[in-house]
């Protein structure tokens, strides 16, 4: 990193062209969360029971499994963007900041994969005996 001109000092610190996209996708996924999490809450409240059979039987329905997968993607995408902003505000050391982004990506993609996999397994294989 240069110590001379202004452009030399900021080069390599990231493009200044992603902010608007980040901000917009935070809003798109917020609307997704709004609709899908309210749907989940309402469903949990009106389900006959939250025992194993009721829940797996319910999730196995394609009209439940698909929105549930979309909800997982929307939540983890939204939190990936949101936690990035929080970490950028509080983690100042460059190395730690890099490491926190690495962990955040692992968390967001790992969590979303686990959630989608669990739903798919229930939907395709039904309840385990």
């Amino acid at each position: 990193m240069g110590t001379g001109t202004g452009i030399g000092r900021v080069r390599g610190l990231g493009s200044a062209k992603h902010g608007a996209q980040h901000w917009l996708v935070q809003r798109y996924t917020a609307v997704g969360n709004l609709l899908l999490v309210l749907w989940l809450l309402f469903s949990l409240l009106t389900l006959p029971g939250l025992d194993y059979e009721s829940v797996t039987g319910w999730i196995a329905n394609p009209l439940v499994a698909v929105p549930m997968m979309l909800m997982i993607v929307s939540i983890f995408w939204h939190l990936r963007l949101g936690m990035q902003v929080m970490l950028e505000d509080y983690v100042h050391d460059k190395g730690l900041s890099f490491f926190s982004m690495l962990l955040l990506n692992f968390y967001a993609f790992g969590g979303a994969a686990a959630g989608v996999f669990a739903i798919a397994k229930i939907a395709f294989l039904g309840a385990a005996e």
Partner: protein
Amino acid sequence: MAQSNSRPLSPHLTIWKWGPAMAVSIMHRVTGNGLATAGALGLVWWLMAAATGPDAYAYFVRCATSPIGYLVMIGLSWFFFQHLCSGLRHFVLDMGAGYELRNNKSWSIATFILSLLLTGFMWLYIFGKAL
């Protein structure tokens, strides 16, 4: 530097006063990150337990229905409703509306009242149904 020191130095990092707008902004961050960690992990735990089998699911239910489990779920549901209300407030502010001082203050307070009401009614319904 030819700077007059008779001019006020406001806004300044050490000079501020608590207000509803500040509280709602801080709570948006706290609730968002609380949901992003505890909420998301709880959700994935629930799905993973259901995908693993009856024993794993029974263990989840035992944790979820313990006193601490209820405390966590009530807290998360309040966090969700609060984040939802302050998120909707964000949408309004994003459109450039709602910055008049009185309006801004009333709607900040309204997010707290609404989220507490939603949480209260939901759990009244849940516990009412269980009786």
